[in-house]
């Protein structure tokens, strides 16, 4: 935690608060020189609005001091958070987002030079402004990273749900066809959604089909077993189908105990058993 900074010199305040329309203009000259405004992801007018808003809250906050972590600087931080999140969603990179802020330095320094009365004051003020913009820039980048992570996490979850849907095979029978290699995280999420669907559909039989799973390790085997136990605890039952010979071997090798768990070679066999347990009989219609 950096030490708090005292109220900035009048020179700095003056630069940030006086004639902000002109400052905004000079800032955008700088931004355009770097290619902003010709970007299809955000319109120039939208960028200008954001710039004006930032200068407004910046000027107000600077009145109280330069500790950007303090309460009076909240509007600035929140503005930067909003801006940074929307940039992340619009597809900008973190450096593009930070550049928006950093390019404010040049016009600010130009103003300081024009208004300073002595070298010492200019040096002091330049340092204050640099530190201020740098800290805000860091905050922006940090928020940006976090937003990107959130987007990625959400997308991952959605992909997981889509790739392993729970299907209702019949009244009271649901099936979970698992495909591809199973990792611990994926298995857990998928199992939770299976349990949830069992409750939602009131299904007393769940079939977990692992025909499409090439290998199973100890962790996954244990997850499968825990899922079967949980399903039983809830008052339903579970059949595991599609265990290939290789997987059967692995399970025996690993010493995983499968007693009490009903297994069937194919999903069709499992469905047949499910019907039997439900007291259902399939007959061929008379021709």
């Amino acid at each position, binding site marked *: 935690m950096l030490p708090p900074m005292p109220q900035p010199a009048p020179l700095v305040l003056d630069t940030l608060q006086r004639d902000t329309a002109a400052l905004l203009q000079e800032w955008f000259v700088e931004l355009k020189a770097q290619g902003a405004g010709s970007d299809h992801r955000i319109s120039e007018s939208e960028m200008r609005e954001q710039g004006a808003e930032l200068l407004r809250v910046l000027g107000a906050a600077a009145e109280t001091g330069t500790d950007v972590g303090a309460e009076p600087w909240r509007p600035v931080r929140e503005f930067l958070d909003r801006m940074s999140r929307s940039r992340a969603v619009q597809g900008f990179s973190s450096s593009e987002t930070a550049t928006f802020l950093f390019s404010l330095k040049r016009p600010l320094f130009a103003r300081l030079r024009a208004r300073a009365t002595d070298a010492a004051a200019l040096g002091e003020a330049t340092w204050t402004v640099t530190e201020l913009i740098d800290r805000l820039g860091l905050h922006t980048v940090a928020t940006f990273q976090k937003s990107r992570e959130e987007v990625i996490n959400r997308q991952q979850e959605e992909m997981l749900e889509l790739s392993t849907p729970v299907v209702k095979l019949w009244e009271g029978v649901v099936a979970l066809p698992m495909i591809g290699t199973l990792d611990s995280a994926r298995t857990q999420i998928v199992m*939770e959604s299976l349990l*949830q669907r069992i*409750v939602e559909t*009131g299904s*007393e039989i769940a079939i977990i089909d692992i025909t499409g799973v090439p290998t199973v390790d100890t962790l996954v085997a244990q997850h499968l077993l*825990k899922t079967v136990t949980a399903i039983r*605890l*809830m*008052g*339903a039952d579970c059949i595991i189908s599609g265990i290939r010979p290789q997987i059967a071997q692995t399970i025996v090798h690993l010493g995983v105990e499968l007693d009490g768990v009903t297994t069937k070679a194919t999903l069709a066999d499992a469905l047949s058993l499910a019907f039997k347990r439900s007291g259902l009989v399939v007959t061929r219609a008379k021709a």
Partner: protein
Amino acid sequence: MDRIPILRMGDFLLVTIQVDMHDQLALTLQDDLTAAIQRTGAKGVLIDISALEMVDSFIGRMIANISRMARILDARTVVVGMRPAVAITLVELGLSLAGVDTALDVERGMRRLRDALDEAGVASADHED
């Protein structure tokens, strides 16, 4: 002291747990249920835990105890409505609740109790000759 109400439905007793129980409340329920089974001669007990967001080892033991005591008094117990998150946690906790019968909801629980009673009725009818 507050108590969890026990409803009578024909040959069965129905208990719906809807509060976050403190230990004493759980113990009181255990006692009340046992007394009620004896008093009414109930043949089945349905414990509805669909409102419980958590079942720890204490509540788990209470459920197992009720099931055991009911059996001694010739009644069957079915626990219904366990939530997925609770089931997963119980498995992780290592609490097996062995010997406790479960069903997805009250309706299915009733059916299970009735089926068990019918079976028992057939068995005792067989014995009578």
